[in-house]
Structure formats: C-alpha cells, structure tokens
C-alpha cells in the first residue's frame, strides 16, 4: 500500500499535517493533498531514479549477473539447448499401468507380493541381491512366521566368533537378511561380463518411472530395429537408456509355477515381481496411506474450523461503520 505512494505524496501529507491546525478545512489545501498521489513530483529521489546513470548502472548490473551465472553454472535456466543426441538415448517413456496400489487409498495386493517373492527367489535372485530385506520383513506381509522361518533355515549363514574364536556356519533365522548371490561386487561383475546387477531393495524408488519402468523393462525386450548395432552379450531394450542392456530377457511364459494356480504368463510374472519390489522399496506403504486418510480428514476439518473462527472474530470488525459528524461550521 505504501509503496504505491510517491515520495512527493509523503511530503505533501507532512506539510498538510503541520498546517492543519490553522487551515484544516480550507478547500485548496484539502484538494492538493487529495490529488498528491496522481500529480507529477519533482523530488530529488525521482530525478535520481530516472537518470541516465541509474539506467546505465542497472544495465551493467544485469549484464554482470548473467555473465557471472553463465560462468558459474555453464548454462542459463529456461533457455533451450541443442543436443547432439537422439531421444533413444534417454530410453522409451514407460506407459502408466493401473497398479492395484496406485490410488491414494489403495493398499498393496498381498497375494501379488507373495507371487512376486516366488518369482524373485526362483528367477531374479540368481543375479540380484536384496540386501535391505530380512526374512522377518515377510512375516505378516506375504508369509506366515512359520513359512518365513522355514525358508530362512534353508540358507546357511556365517556367524561367530564362538568361545574358541572360530567363525561357524548356522542355519538362518528370521532376523537374517536375504542372502546375496555374489560375495562382493567384483564377483558379481566377473560373473556377468563386467555388468553389475543392481541391488533390488530400492530399485523401484531408484529408477525414473518407478514400477511402470521396471514392468516395461521386463516385458519390453524386442529385436533391435534396423541400423541399431548391439554388441555380443548385450540385448536390445527400448526402455533402457541407450537401448543396450546386459541383462537378457528372463521372464518367459510358464517359467514358474504359482502355488495359487495363477497362470504364469510373462506379464503376470512381471506384474507380480514389480509389486513385490515396490513393497521392498516401500514397506511402509500401506501404513503410510492409512495415516494419510486420517491426516487429510483431521487437517481439512481443522482448516475449515480455522476459517470459521477467523470470520467469527473478524465479522464485527469488518462490518462496523464509522460515522464522522462534522461540527457545525458556524464559528
């Protein structure tokens, strides 16, 4: 509000206030004060602000800022660039699939998580680790405690040292984490022609496009189009950035046999394993959405209450009328 007034207006008002005792209601003073904000002013501040020196220094400052920014960051924001690359280098954009957990109120499909774990264990686990998931995490999500304990006991873990200082092997417990297929990164690379199979614990969060991307990648293997050279040991997948991926297509119809009788087609297995990996990346997903429902209800109620209280308190103040009864001008 104040910024809309010119410096001259303040001066006028000040002089008006100083002289109000003598000439409070004389017409000419009142009129000049009233139109002060629309009249041209000749204050020293305005003449400085409109001067050529001000224009020149503002221009210099602008040019300097742009030069400094370009020097520091290389490019300017919001300015298009010319790329000497092709869109296929970015990978094909995945379609949006109607996941059973897509909506803000939708939980994971836990039967699908269970099938997806089976696919992971029988197919993916040959190369990919799942470091951040322990056997106990499956309990109450896709398996009962007894099932998870039985699965853990099939794996030997190194433990120790014992009383003699020796390390020893023991069957797994619920608290143990999923066994990795390779002891270290070098072993994983040498077993896969130099390519490191990424850990799958957070893969859905770690890839642009999330679950849609993983599903598209698993089901998107095709022959390379004419003109695209794929080296030996590499495979063509349009969804993978660059097109050439070291992982071959692994999901084929009927590869696993689901215990609940679901037909194990390629897309069914891909959907199940992506649901499982999405759960692995976001184990808090279901609880988070339940809290979300509560939070939205509570906070939107509080918001409307606060609006009501504001209007309740301000109503009398905003609706009051202030009357000014001028004294009879007779003296």
């Amino acid at each position, binding site marked *: 509000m104040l910024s809309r007034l010119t410096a001259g207006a303040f001066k006028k008002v000040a002089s008006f206030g100083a002289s109000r005792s003598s000439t409070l209601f004389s017409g000419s003073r009142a009129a000049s004060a009233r139109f002060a904000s629309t009249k041209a002013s000749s204050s020293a501040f305005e003449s400085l602000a409109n001067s050529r020196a001000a224009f020149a220094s503002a221009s210099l400052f602008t040019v300097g800022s742009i030069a400094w920014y370009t020097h520091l960051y290389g490019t300017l924001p919001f300015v298009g660039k010319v790329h000497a690359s092709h869109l296929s280098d970015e990978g094909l954009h995945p379609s949006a699939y109607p996941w059973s957990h897509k909506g803000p109120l939708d939980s994971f499909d836990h039967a699908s998580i269970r099938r997806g774990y089976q696919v992971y264990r029988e197919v993916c686990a040959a190369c990919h680790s799942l470091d951040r998931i322990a056997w106990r995490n499956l309990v109450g999500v896709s398996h009962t*405690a007894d099932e998870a304990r039985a699965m853990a006991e099939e794996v030997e873990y190194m433990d120790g040292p014992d009383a003699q200082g020796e390390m020893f092997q023991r069957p797994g417990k619920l608290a143990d984490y999923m066994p990795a297929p390779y002891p270290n990164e070098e072993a994983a690379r040498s077993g896969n022609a130099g390519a490191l199979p990424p850990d799958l614990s957070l893969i859905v969060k770690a890839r642009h496009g999330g679950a849609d991307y993983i599903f598209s990648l698993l089901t998107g293997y095709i022959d390379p189009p004419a003109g695209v050279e794929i080296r030996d040991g590499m495979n063509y997948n349009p969804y993978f950035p660059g097109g050439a991926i070291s992982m071959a297509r692994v999901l084929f119809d009927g590869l696993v046999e689901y215990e609940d009788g679901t037909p194990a087609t390629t897309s069914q297995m891909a959907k199940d394993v992506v649901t499982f990996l999405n759960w692995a990346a976001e184990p808090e997903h279901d609880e988070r959405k339940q809290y979300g429902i509560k939070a939205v209800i509570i906070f939107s109620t509080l918001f409307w209450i606060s609006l009501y209280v504001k209007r309740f308190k301000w109503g009398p103040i905003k609706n009051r009328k202030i009357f000014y009864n001028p004294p009879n001008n007779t003296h």
Partner: protein
Amino acid sequence: MSLSTGIYNTLFKRNSVFVGTIFAGAFLFGVGFDTATTTFWERWNKGKLWKDIRHKYVTDAEE
C-alpha cells in the same frame, strides 16, 4: 433447564470436570476415529490385504 444449561452445569462449570471431559473426549474420539478409518480401509481394499489371504497359508498348529 435447557440443553445448553445442562451441558454447562455438568461438563463446563468445574475446571477439573472440564479438563476431564477434554481428556476423555480425546481418548474416545481417537478410538472411534481409528476404528472408522480402519474399517473403511479394510472394506476398500478387501481381498488384497494379508488378513484376507492369511487363512490360506496358516497351518492348524499355529492356531
């Protein structure tokens, strides 16, 4: 005695009763709100939750 006077005399008049009303009300609201949202969640996601498929895998020894 009108309804508002009755509420005032029973709940608001003494500060100790007033504070007790707030605490008890918060507790009861919390329980009720929890139950309501959980019921909605389980109805909305019927068939997808672990509790809906658990019976297929639990053996008799556990129950």
